[in-house]
């Protein structure tokens, strides 16, 4: 087809179809609810949830993972609008990681013996934590991909990674309801690893999932 023919064809339909506003949020909220139900039913909340809610670290890890989810969500939104950029994202990410990494390091350095250090770092659940966070992020990750596929993603790898981080952070926040661990070193390692899995998956599958 010649270009003027194509233009004549496209020009017949200048006004875009109306969008249903709020639908992306609804889909994301629905997926988050699915992950929440999975946690409540399959993993069960930690029995001492009520008393844990009085501890600083309970809220500390929640704020940490939610801020990562926020950075991911913001970056995914920016990168799916042509002409917008997310230059601040790496810096924000670094700041959040340091905010947990520095207390983690000082906690380990302050530990009296190698044995306590190991206990702080590995906790009781280091084997299952990253895998569970990654698995719980799946519904939310799928919802993000659904949302992004309806937008114009111009940086598919970065947007995929950002969506993975947003999903991983949200799943980690829900996982806080179940997780009994409360050391910064544990969170800085195993939570981060769990959130990195969907982020890496998003990076790797970005072109395949978000191409248009």
């Amino acid at each position, binding site marked *: *087809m010649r*270009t*003027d023919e*194509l*233009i*004549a064809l*496209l*020009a*017949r*339909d*200048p*006004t*875009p*179809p109306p*969008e249903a506003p709020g639908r992306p949020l609804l889909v994301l909220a629905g997926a988050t609810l699915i992950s929440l139900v999975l946690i409540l039913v399959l993993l069960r909340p930690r029995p001492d949830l009520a008393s844990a809610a009085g501890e600083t670290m309970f809220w500390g890890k929640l704020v940490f993972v939610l801020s990562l989810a926020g950075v991911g969500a913001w970056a995914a939104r920016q990168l*799916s*609008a*042509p*002409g*917008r950029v997310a230059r601040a994202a790496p810096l924000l990410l670094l700041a959040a990681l340091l905010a947990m990494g520095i207390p983690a390091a000082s906690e380990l350095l302050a530990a009296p013996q190698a044995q306590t250090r190991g206990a702080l770092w590995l906790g009781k659940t280091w084997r299952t934590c990253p895998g569970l966070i990654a698995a719980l992020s799946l519904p939310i990750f799928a919802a993000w991909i659904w949302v992004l596929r309806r*937008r*114009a*993603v*111009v*940086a598919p790898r970065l947007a995929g990674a950002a969506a993975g981080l947003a999903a991983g952070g949200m799943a980690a926040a829900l996982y806080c309801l179940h997780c009994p661990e409360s050391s910064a070193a544990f969170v800085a390692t195993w939570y981060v690893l769990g959130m990195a899995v969907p982020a890496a998956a998003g990076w790797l599958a970005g*072109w395949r999932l978000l*191409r*248009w």
Partner: protein
Amino acid sequence: MEGSSSAEERLRPLFLRGLEGDEAAYTEFLKACAAHLRGFLRRRLSAWPDREEDLVQEVLIGLHNQRASYAPEIPLTAWIHAIARYKLVDFLRRTGRQEALSEPLSDALDDELSMQVDGGLQSMQAQRDLAKLMAGLPAPQREAILHMKVDGWTVKETASAMQVTESWVKVAVHRGLKTLAAQLGKDK
């Protein structure tokens, strides 16, 4: 290509009127946009001049399908360029994959590689860069390329002059051109 700010002033009102349903303005926008894109893509697609118009059309379709994604606070040209760049990268990825798949030697492929090298040369300001890149090739590949592409010899003539088989010449030329094309692509 005209400057981005004058393109912005010209394209934006047309596009916004188009979104409100003005077909004539939208046609004008698409036409002006096609011209703008030709300039934008020509410099970046010099290795595939015959694909330029295809890509212009792909970008136009992309712009049209995503016209709801335009947010008024973003410069329109930034929006257009982001989409054009995305479609360009997508095209280069697809082309790269096809080339990797069609590894068997073919004259058509080598012609395309030569064209990439030529195209790269035009965009590079000085030809001495080619000499530098050529110097980086293994000597037999360099010699085979010089005989075939500069002296204009056939495969047979090159093979007998270099005392090697014809298929060796083909492989050497192909590999050498591929290396050159890759390096030119990297330098751009």
